């Protein structure tokens, strides 16, 4: 356990320590470190291709860093990058759901794979105003409906860490309001990280990190 993690026993902390990532010898970012505690929200900003999505992928375990590590201190235990996904809800434009499954079936599959109950599914479907389309195959969804379903997917298992990559892409006004309300509800209880350049989304977070500063 790192020294910084030991200090925070009792308060869940997500620590990102000295992360570096490069693709084909091109450095995306290097020596990037930060901590986010329960009740904190962080907006990750930076121009296109600066590594916002890469950083989110590393945090939730979809991608490995070249150096450094991410860890979560939760209930006095330290979880490494290969376990953080169990505590994470993630939504991104490049996260694809199964086109040949219905909206409901996609959420049901995610809940069953995570080993949590399916009681939240209907609640989330109603919340994101997808009740009429939940029995349609996802391949028949519009991009906005898919994005709403992805947001529902990220909240499905009541995760402790919420990671959103450009969360309101393709969503209409009412969808944006739903998203903002959800962020307000979870802000004090969870860790929220949003990768975006949209000012209305960065405004939802208390802290900002510009990945371009870690080139």
């Amino acid at each position, binding site marked *: 356990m790192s020294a910084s993690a030991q200090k925070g026993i009792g308060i869940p902390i997500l620590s990102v320590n000295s992360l570096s990532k490069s693709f084909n010898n091109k450095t995306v970012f290097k020596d990037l470190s930060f901590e986010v505690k329960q009740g904190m929200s962080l907006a990750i900003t930076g121009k296109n291709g600066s590594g916002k999505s890469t950083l989110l992928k590393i945090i939730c375990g979809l*991608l490995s860093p070249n150096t450094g590590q991410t860890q979560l201190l939760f209930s006095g235990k330290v979880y490494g990058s290969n376990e953080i996904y169990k505590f994470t809800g*993630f939504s991104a434009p490049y996260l694809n759901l199964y086109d040949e*499954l219905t909206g409901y*079936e996609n959420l049901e599959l*995610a809940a069953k*794979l995570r080993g949590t109950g399916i009681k939240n599914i209907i609640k989330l479907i109603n919340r994101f105003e997808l009740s009429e389309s939940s029995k349609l195959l996802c391949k028949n969804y519009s991009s906005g409906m898919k994005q709403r379903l992805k947001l529902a997917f990220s909240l499905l298992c009541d995760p402790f860490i919420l990671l959103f990559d450009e969360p309101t892409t393709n969503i209409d006004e009412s969808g944006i309001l739903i998203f903002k309300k959800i962020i307000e509800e979870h802000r004090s209880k969870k860790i929220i990280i949003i990768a975006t350049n949209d000012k209305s989304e960065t405004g939802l977070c208390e802290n900002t990190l510009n990945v371009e500063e870690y080139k």
Partner: protein
Amino acid sequence: MFKAGIEILKKDLKLELRSRYALNSLLMFILVLVCIFKFALGEEKISEQVHAGIIWALIFFTCTGGLSRAFVSEEEKGTSAFLKLTTSSSSVILGKLFFNILLSFITVSALVLLYILLTDLQIAVPLLFVLILFLGTLGLSVVLTIISSLISKANSKGNLYPVLSFPLILPLMLSSINSTIICIEGTTFFALSQDIILLFSYIIVVTTASFMLFPFVWQD
């Protein structure tokens, strides 16, 4: 892990039943292959060795045609992140193994039945023949599943699949072909015991290696 593996199997079955991509193309492939062999052979009497070789060549090509989809389709459709975010790597490989084993048993059963019907092949010990087919197909499914996960991230998937699988399946194929010849000619269980032990050991070793290797393959 087991429950999540079953959920992945159910998901893959549902997707397959809705798209019928693999099953339809495999059954068509089997029909074409067996008919070509039948027309080529005509009424000519062929030896047990040739029958065994043809049967296992057909099984190999059928399985390589169908089982590669397990991971390739997840990568192509961009849904592997869905699985990575919801379950462990061991559940994923278990679920994919279940699906590939089921798919290969269905296609191999259809293939062998069609081959026997069209060529009027007489098998002296049918029960042992079925056992050898079962073990051989099981071993082939396990090897091809882990290779499918390896090639899913490569650019030239089609070329890599048979190239990577050939050296790995060689001991399995040699033992399966040898046992099939003996089953067609007629034998006892004890005469085949060495081959059966070899097939069992092969399956156990390859399955264990798959579960150890897969987490590294699954992580980008």
